[in-house]
């Protein structure tokens, strides 16, 4: 009986904040892209005045930063830690994410 209550809570959460994206299959792109989230928000949906990444096309900008001769801000230093292939995976992932989680939630 207790177990049912516990599962009921999960179900309630799912109804309230459904998955924005399929998550049953942990993807490689998702993992590497999540490494930008410390600064740009979970799933690229940032808080405060930093650029969001969800739904954005960022590949060209990232490549520009990667090849900047002299990194001048923290973002250029970040970009230069990745390979072009990795940056493409990251950019792909964010470009295909909706700007907002469906139903406005950022949860599950």
């Amino acid at each position, binding site marked *: 009986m207790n177990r049912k209550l516990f599962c009921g809570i999960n179900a309630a959460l799912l109804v309230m904040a459904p998955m924005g994206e399929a*998550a049953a299959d942990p993807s490689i792109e998702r*993992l590497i892209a999540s490494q930008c989230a*410390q600064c740009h928000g979970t799933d690229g949906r940032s808080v405060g005045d930093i650029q969001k990444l969800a739904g954005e096309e960022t590949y060209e900008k990232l490549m520009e930063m990667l090849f900047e001769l002299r990194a001048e801000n923290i973002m250029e230093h970040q970009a230069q830690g990745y390979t072009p292939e990795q940056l493409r995976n990251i950019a792909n992932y964010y470009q295909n994410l909706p700007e907002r989680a469906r139903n406005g*939630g950022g949860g*599950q």
Partner: protein
Amino acid sequence: MNGKSARPSNAEADRGLSRRGFIGHVAGAIGLAAAPNVLRAAANPRVIVIGAGFGGATVAKYLRHWSGGAVDVVLIDRSSRHISCVMSNLVLNQRLQMSDLALGFTDLVQRYGVTFIQDSVDEIDGPGIRVKLRGGGWLSADRIVAATGINFRNVPGWDKSAVPHAWIAGGQTRLLRDQIAAMPDNGRFVMTIPKSPYRCPPGPYERACTVADILGRRSGIIGGNAIGAPPKVIVLDENDHIQAEEATFRRAFEGMYRNIIEYYPNAKLQAVDSVHRVAQTSIGDFDGDVLNVIGPQQASWFLKTSGLVPTSQRWAPVDVLGYESTVSGCDAVHIIGDSQGSSQPKSGHMANSQAKVCADAILRRFAGQPLNTAERLANLTTNSACFSPITYDQASYLTAVYAYNPATRAMQATKVGEAERWSREQYRQMFTWADNLWADSFN
């Protein structure tokens, strides 16, 4: 200025949900958790996460988020909320209040469906995959993640209630703030830095600058109308040089703080006279109006007594593909953040980063997928960032990206970058960064 300004606290309201009704359910879940074996859901695998700091909160959140709720997560912390070390030096100069550093678990529980238990863990049974709660009983799981930060090694004579470290935030931070506030204007602040690796490589030097700025302004040395001898900040470093952002800190120590900061390398702390506030070191004794001992550090003691830290080591050895313990028979136990012993820096940003690799690995294990596919190895990265206040309104930063090196099977820096100069712009960026780091970990 409030680091938590832009946090999505309206999320529940946005969903048109009756907050009170919902909290009622959650309280029920927490109640259940107190009777451990009731909790076990047959269908879902269960992960116990010990420690709800940057590493633990993030792994709990991402396990729920990425599994779509198909993994049960039980998060255990001895406190009902986490007090952030990140930004805590700003409490010393009173740019932030203690309450600004408090990070609650409400979103983890309500938004993500994490079960929270407030208790201390005293032991991990690695082969049995279970943890012993101080409150009584064992709790078992399919996987365990330990993210319990640091402990201090013993230093003869060191009484932390008189000589604070303020390197685990909370009462210690308040104590050091109050001691600094009570110092004479031309007083003497003595601090010690332990041998690397320790938590937050630039942190101690950042603290030296913050305190020099406080005392410099108060005495009039900064601003140019000083009377009498300048205040002193004596930095006793066990290492042979500044451990992070060396050029930046040298410029600060030898430039604008040259009359205040005295930096001594190779000063190994041997004992503390806590009554008279004396640091006894390999290069001599130093007494201060305030003594701040950032003591020598190691993984949490219970990881050692649980056999997860081999006798001659200080940190828990792990395989960086998923932060599984490399101690034989204990590979269902993951260790992330400051307690683990890989070569990456000990930072909150990095603990968050490792937590995501760990969450991904756990989900793969549950799905019967390998961790070492070529594609995964080629995309296995972590990164770190620390912003350091250098004056009351300017900051520098240090950031690094790490990638998996198959030859060494270690994470290796692919880029380390730091600010060329400290600035007001970076001081502002520091708050946006902290907001997002906190939110990505706790909300």
